[in-house]
């Protein structure tokens, strides 16, 4: 599903240059649940941003679902993001003046789907994350765990190839974190490819494979015995 070869990325700040990614090589197959670990400054967020087409690599190749992602303009990047990717953020990034339902239907709106179908599909995904009865509430009326579940429903709404989660449990307490991970595991069980960036070991253990990043290179990439979050809930 994802093939990355010799990926480099530097940031320039004035005369200083910061080499963040120093040759990343890794593949993700369909249906995998991968966690990317590393301390802050290891380059894991940069990698995720490149995977999410929010940022572009300096050199190296990135192939997503057999489509080479290269030299994108804003318009095509926006189209690919909408088509291929679903984002889950640490701080949820819901639009605060829109109801849960409207937030979930947002990617469908940009896909150009009619209002009626949009609402139906958004409602379907809200049900899936167990928030059907909260559909008309604003984000400010929801708890942290509920917000993240709305965000997951939104990421799923456009039926993307890959879900990218950046510290999805970073702003949540342990119990809620496990609930969210249970949901993510459930979605993965249905066959969705998911990448999770985290620095928490217990969260990483709940995925099927851990990629360890340090100073811009992968130092370890190994499959793990998945811990089911449901046993903690």
């Amino acid at each position, binding site marked *: 599903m994802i093939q990355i070869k010799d990926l480099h990325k530097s940031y320039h700040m004035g005369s200083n240059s910061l080499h963040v990614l120093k040759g990343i090589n890794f593949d993700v197959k369909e249906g995998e649940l991968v966690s990317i670990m590393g301390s802050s400054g290891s380059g894991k967020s940069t990698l995720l*941003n490149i995977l*999410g087409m*929010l*940022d572009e690599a300096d050199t190296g190749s990135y192939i997503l679902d057999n489509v080479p992602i290269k030299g994108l303009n*804003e*318009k095509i990047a*926006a*189209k690919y*993001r*909408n*088509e291929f990717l679903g*984002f889950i*953020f*640490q*701080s949820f*990034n*819901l*639009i605060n*003046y*829109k109801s849960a339902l409207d937030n979930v239907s*947002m*990617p469908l*709106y*940009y*896909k150009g789907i009619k*209002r009626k179908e949009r609402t139906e599909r958004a409602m379907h995904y809200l049900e899936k994350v167990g928030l059907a009865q909260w559909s008309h509430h604003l984000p400010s009326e929801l708890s942290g765990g509920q917000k993240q579940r709305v965000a997951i429903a*939104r990421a799923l709404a*456009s039926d993307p190839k890959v879900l990218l989660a950046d510290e999805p449990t970073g702003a949540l307490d342990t119990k809620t974190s496990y609930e969210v991970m249970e949901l993510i595991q459930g979605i993965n069980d249905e066959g969705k490819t998911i990448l999770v960036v985290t620095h928490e070991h217990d969260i990483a253990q709940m995925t099927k494979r851990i990629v360890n990043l340090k100073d811009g290179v992968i130092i370890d990439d190994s499959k793990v015995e998945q811990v089911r979050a449901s046993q903690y809930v």
Partner: protein
Amino acid sequence: MFDIERWQEIFETLKKNKLRTFLTGLSVASGIFILVILLGFSKGIENGVKSEFEQDATNLITVWTGVTTKSYKGLNPGRYIQMKNENFDFISQKYDQHIEYETSLFSIWGAEISYKNETVNYQVRGAMPGHQFIENADMESGRFVNQADLDETRKVAVIGRKLRQDLFKDEDPINKSISIYGMNFKVIGVFIDPGGEREEQQAYIPLSTSQKVFGAGDDIRNMLFTVKMSDNFDEAVALSQNMANAVENELKLMHTVAPDDTSAVRVFNTLDEAKKIYSLVATIQAVFWFVGIGTIIAGIVGVGNIMLIIVKERTKEIGIRKALGALPMSIVGMILQEAVFVTMFAGLFGLIFGLALLEIVGPQVESDFLKYPQVDFNIALTTVFLLVFAGAIAGFIPAYRAAKIKPIVALRDE
């Protein structure tokens, strides 16, 4: 544009910031309001000036004479210059191709006019047929003096509406006989003059008759010509100015008057005067437009400013939208539409308010140079287009900025 969802979003954001929206709208609305009022008044001034000139033809050259003030070729100053029929005929023939209507006049002021028991003292003018058009006079009934009246020195009179009212009350004056200084004249017509009551007090008789009954011989008091108008106003002004100068020179030559003597022969050219006043009016109108547009620009800059702040505030939201697949165009559209909507709505409000005020107050305003201030439909339409255009400009820079926002920057957790 007609996307319900997008309109809903615009209303939501506007509702969330009522005070900000209100203040922005107020600046645009007052700008348009001021523009409409200014334009209304400039139209009012135009109407006022036009009605001042409507009394007589605007392309009129008037000639009258006085006393010489300078000695010339051995002749002493203090001579009264008396124009004769032959002077008029000469000029009339020489400048025939430029002249539209012509008349020479011999008038008696305060003539005693009576019918039955009613007697009044009004002006009686001996005139030619062309005078009707020069005065812009319309016939209420009957006809004006014609060439046959002149040729046969008929004792006929055309009376003004006021004079008819004074003498005849409700009686039909046509073919009745009035007396001027005891001489009987047959009334052949009643005229209406846009110059008002003063003009409508007069009676016109054929010039030849007037010269004969008042013992004037060949004397005339005034000559009046209208110059043929060309489509180009400036050309017409130049032509009539040339003609006025030529007439003045001819008369001075015929009567041996010093070329620099300004009081013996006087020629007044209405078109030249009209040009001065029209260009003054045009200047006033230009200033009004300038001030009005300046006010609108101030309002629009306000809208642009607010939109920049809105974009700044919504940076994160725009980042989210982009991450979810919003095209740059749809972001531009969103911001632009909001700006256009605010300017349109507020502007239309100002426009309607201004128009309503002019509609209510306008018809009551009537003085010499200000009459019925109003804004015509085309100008209102122009302002509306101006508004849409202005709104688009006000929104464009903020929208462009919004489209340039990188989702990665916008989504960075602070």
